């Protein structure tokens, strides 16, 4: 869940790292995706998911809270527009499975929703930013407590590099070379009132 700390429109207040200065307020350096760019990237990913799966059989989309959840719904809508099928969509809150519980303040929780049984399904995890890979590792644990999918795939809007775990995405909207000092924020209309991908600095606590 990279790039979303302190999002002003966030539904749930985020925990702050205790005693660590956050580098001041977020300052935007560049807008790297506009609403049309995001829409095109998501439509392409939707096509790739269906192509790779040879149809929609057994597909389930699970968005990772917070901003992966609306992105998963948009992928569902895109797939419905060209396949005529509503793929089941759920949402996963991975806060309780993170490996940094105890290193930073506790995060607010949102509900995990599961669209039926996940056993033997093809689950596509959807997140906004892929960064360290630790959010995805936590998502694996959260997912496997809910069932035993036949396969798990990963779709992200932005891959900003700097992995700390051997994890890669199957579907990527945009590869974005960044410095670790930079902060990537994805803004989505459902939560933030606009669609955009921003690079900036400060207020950084990217975790994804």
């Amino acid at each position: 869940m990279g790039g979303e700390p302190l999002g002003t429109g966030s539904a749930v207040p985020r925990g702050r790292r205790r005693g660590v200065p956050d580098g001041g307020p977020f300052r935007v350096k560049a807008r790297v995706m506009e609403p049309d760019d995001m829409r095109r990237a998501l439509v392409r990913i939707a096509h790739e998911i269906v192509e790779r799966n040879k149809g929609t059989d057994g597909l389930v989309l699970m968005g990772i809270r917070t901003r992966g959840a609306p992105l998963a719904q948009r992928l569902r809508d895109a797939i419905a527009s060209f396949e005529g099928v509503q793929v089941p969509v759920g949402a996963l809150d991975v806060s309780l499975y993170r490996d940094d519980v105890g290193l930073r303040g506790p995060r607010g929780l949102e509900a995990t929703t599961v669209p039926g049984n996940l056993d033997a399904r093809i689950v596509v995890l959807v997140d906004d930013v892929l960064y360290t890979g630790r959010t995805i590792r936590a998502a694996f644990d959260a997912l496997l407590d809910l069932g035993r999918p036949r396969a798990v795939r990963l779709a992200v809007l932005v891959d900003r590099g700097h992995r700390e775990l051997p994890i890669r995405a199957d579907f990527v909207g945009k590869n974005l070379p960044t410095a670790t000092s930079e902060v990537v924020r994805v803004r989505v209309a459902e939560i933030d009132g606009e669609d955009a991908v921003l690079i900036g600095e400060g207020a950084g606590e990217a975790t994804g």
Partner: protein
Amino acid sequence: MIPQHLLSIDQLDETAITRILDTARGLRSVTDRPLKKLPTLRGRTVCNLFYEPSTRTRVSFELAAKRLSADVINFQADARSSVSKGESLKDTAWTLEAMGVDALVVRHPSSGAAAQLSRWVRARVINAGDGRHEHPTQALLDLFSMRERFGTLAGLKVVIVGDIAHSRVARSNVKGLVTMGADVTLVGPPTLVPPQVESWGAKVSYDLDAVLDDADVCYLLRVQRERLGAPAFPTLREYAALWGLDRARAARLKPDALVMHPGPINRGVEIAADVADLPRAVILEQVANGVAVRMSLLYLMLGGAEEPPGGGR
């Protein structure tokens, strides 16, 4: 802001209570699914330090801690423990802390015991009932149960009936409900309604029948025979007739009104045997919600940084 120790509901403002209840809501879905275990508090140790008998509070805290993968120690101060050899609360707490306990959940017959304990130890202290003072986690689970049913607490009409004077549950509930904007009326025998209650922000009535029709929640307190010294009312039968919720009174409640009770219930005293089994009596729902609310608290209090700021001996 979630406090380092939870000693009184006074420490929680509306934002903090909302945060605890929202988090509990996320956790409630876990308690309803087949695999109920979460890895969140692996390696943390929670000690239940109980100087009074308890079933639901102790089991509820134990289950909450275990579902978050914390290790749990249950310490019951009775003839089998060193308390019977004269060990003080302070020495007992220091002994437990020396073994590496991260949180102490304390129930004690003396008001203020939890607050005193929090000045002696580095571990987080959660008050699970201290004398006639407070029982904040009971209030939180009651607030959660009401909010789940009605959607909001603001403007909710809650009538709390019974022994207000000796009830830590009433004290915590009134303050929590008032913080959240509910409209609270306390009803009971004049001998058991302390004079200062109006400073808590609640109304007072001595006529149950006059306040029932309008109530969204009728919250019955247990008649605590163990805390009543000189009899405050002549007989249990008289109490039941004047202050008990019987069939006839329950029938006058609004269609969607709830009957609540912190347990354990005295059937036939504060609540008629068959009223306790009505669909509107959500006593077991309160118990189930208690686990989620305590998970929420343990997560919010122990899920942060290792070293609490300040504190210690």
